[in-house]
């Protein structure tokens, strides 16, 4: 047994047993963050807050939700929305947060792409982040099944049908995933399990990995400058706070984080109370009916770009393109052949590539919502081809890039 002294205070008692001072230094007051950042660097904290909102609102929904095909819709739209005190509030928070979290994820992701925060030692941050994107996507999809409305049922039908693999006709696999010939009780129950237990655990583990992968490379900065954290932190601790290039995570960075979070929450709660239809699609307020397909089926907005890549092509080619789209972003650190870790606007063609990719994703997103007819399907096809083209071209334009 290690040596213990009589404690001088409550703080000292915990310190001797849990090293709270050391933990506080390492995680908070001497976790050094560059000063040369902007508010986009706060998106990580915004995501943590949004995830916390999802978790807490989810807990209260879980108290009353019934994962049964006959009572699920009623448990949500009657029991939770009408009977449970503040049930409507948890449902609105949960639905709006599930949608807004993807807006923040995309902003966070594209911030990383713009500033090269996936390069040179930060590959694991990028990869763990992309795995988080996949986990959140699975969480969102499984969650959307639960109200068992028309969109829940038909989105479940369509997305699980993808696993038939076109000409592979892997119907057995589709039935295995569903646990039945069609989305029914088995399907609902297992996606409930995924949504409430398995994927949240995976997300929390991945968040841990994501944070851990950030420690050694340190947070990036607007100029991609390689900072000597030891020297700069010494400057800070010696009293030259203004001159140092770094600041403490707590309370320096955190106070700015909280400022961004505060402004974000104004926007967030405005949506929760006054403008939530985008997050709770009208079609899902019809109870699921396996014998009636809605006139328009579409996924939630954050999946539309992906959906649109699948649509314009014939079945097999579409599936290959779709699989390509899911995986390709993960490979970004390895497809980008340039050594430059600076903002995209200083990287010549890559700067153009960035904005082209962003605009293309928005075009794909909007075409994915529209009926695949006439000019919409033509634009969608061009946008899908552009997406593939941009990724093919990336290694070449970055290889050619001049060293900054």
């Amino acid at each position, binding site marked *: 047994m290690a040596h213990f002294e009589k404690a001088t205070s409550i703080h000292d008692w915990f310190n001797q047993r849990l090293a709270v001072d050391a933990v506080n230094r390492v995680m908070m007051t001497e976790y050094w963050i560059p*000063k*040369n950042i*902007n*508010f*986009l660097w706060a998106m990580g904290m915004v995501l943590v807050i949004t995830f916390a909102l999802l978790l807490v609102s989810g807990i209260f929904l879980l108290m009353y939700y019934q994962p049964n095909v006959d009572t699920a819709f009623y448990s949500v*739209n*009657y029991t939770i*929305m*009408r009977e449970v005190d503040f049930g*409507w*509030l948890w449902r*609105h928070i949960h639905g709006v947060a599930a949608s807004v979290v993807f*807006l923040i994820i995309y*902003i966070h992701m594209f911030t990383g792409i713009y500033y090269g925060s996936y390069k040179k030692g930060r590959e694991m941050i990028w990869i763990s982040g992309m795995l988080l994107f996949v986990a959140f996507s699975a969480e969102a999809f499984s969650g959307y099944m639960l109200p068992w409305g028309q969109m829940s049922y038909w989105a479940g039908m369509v997305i699980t049908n993808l696993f038939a693999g076109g000409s592979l006709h892997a119907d057995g696999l589709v039935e295995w995933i569903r646990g039945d010939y069609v989305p029914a009780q088995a399907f609902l129950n297992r996606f409930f399990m995924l949504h409430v237990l398995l994927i949240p655990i995976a997300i929390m583990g991945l968040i841990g990995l994501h944070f851990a992968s950030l420690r050694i490379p340190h947070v990036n900065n*607007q100029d991609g400058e390689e900072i000597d954290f030891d020297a700069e932190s010494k400057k800070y601790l010696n009293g030259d*706070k*203004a001159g140092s290039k770094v*600041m403490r995570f707590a*309370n*320096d960075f955190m*106070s*700015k984080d*909280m*400022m961004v*979070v*505060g*402004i974000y*929450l*104004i926007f967030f*709660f*405005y949506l*929760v*109370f*006054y403008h939530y*239809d*985008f997050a*709770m699609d*009208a*079609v899902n*307020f*019809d109870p699921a009916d396996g014998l009636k397909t809605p*006139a*328009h089926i579409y996924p939630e*907005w954050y999946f*539309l770009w992906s959906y649109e890549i699948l649509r314009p092509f014939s079945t097999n080619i579409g599936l290959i393109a779709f699989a390509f789209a899911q995986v390709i972003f993960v490979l970004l650190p390895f497809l980008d052949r340039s050594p430059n870790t600076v903002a995209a606007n200083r990287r010549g063609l890559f700067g153009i590539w960035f904005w082209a990719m*962003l605009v293309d994703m*928005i075009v794909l*997103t*909007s075409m994915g*919502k*529209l*009926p695949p007819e006439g000019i*919409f399907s033509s634009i969608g096809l061009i946008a899908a081809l552009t997406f593939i083209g941009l990724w093919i071209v990336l290694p070449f334009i970055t290889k050619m890039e001049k060293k900054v």
Partner: protein
Amino acid sequence: MKNKEPLILAVVVFFTLLTYYLVEPFAHSQMHKHVEGEGFAYKDLPEVTKTGDATRGQDLVMGAGACVGCHSIEAAGMPASMEPQMAAASYGVNPPDLSNAGAVYDEKFLTALIKNPAHALNVEHKYTPESGKMHPMVAFYGAGGDIDQEVADMVAYLKSIAVSQEELTPKMAYELACGRCHAMGYENWTQIGEKPKFKHEKDSLAFDIKVLEYQDSLKAYMGKLPPDLSMYIRSRGEHFLETFIEDPQSHLEGTAMPRVGVTAEVAEKVIEHLADSGDTKRHEREAIGKNVMIYIIIFAIFAILWKKQVWRDLH
């Protein structure tokens, strides 16, 4: 170092709003055609030209008009002679009680309905000569005098026995105008009335069977069972519902749902009741929303002030 944050914020906001616009208002405008209502003016129906006399109207309704041959009028002491599911099985459809028809339906509409039900209800497409089917309500061909005066008298009588607009609650408006065909489970409303509390399971099941029998007749009459409207305020939205109630054909061409002929005021009450069912906590949401917005703005202000204090030394 130039502060680029306003520009960055502008770029982020721009692309977010652009995406929102394309995915929501624009896409929905492409998927659903916009129907402009006419404020329940019923422009296709002739104007009312006569002033009715309620006493003469009563004689006609009870007598030559033959209304009471099929319709009960509780307010006049003439309750229904059959249970709803029996009436539905006999006539094909359950004729509504007329006690409050004068409060719920538009005057022009009632006038046109009495003379030509299928036309006023906008279901002539169902009762073409080829179909061989006739509308269950027989048209009034006159009692020997000026038919327009007679119809005006009958309408005046119906208005005289009905409740006033102040007494007509959203719930009543719904039950009278829609409730004969559309159940509303979340308000415990079946097509044959609110389901009572039964002590014994047997009695509860017996009631359920009556509802199912009624629904069978309704399905046979309409072609399919009219949907439960509990969540329609959220699945269809106010604008759709308003224009749909005014003229179902404008949204669903060829539908069997009749144009029910309510006034604009009654339509508003019906929609209010749909909101009571599918958006029950809306008033609480607005009240709490206001308080939360005030709080969160204060929260943000304090966060900004804290940040400014902390960063004073860092710049």
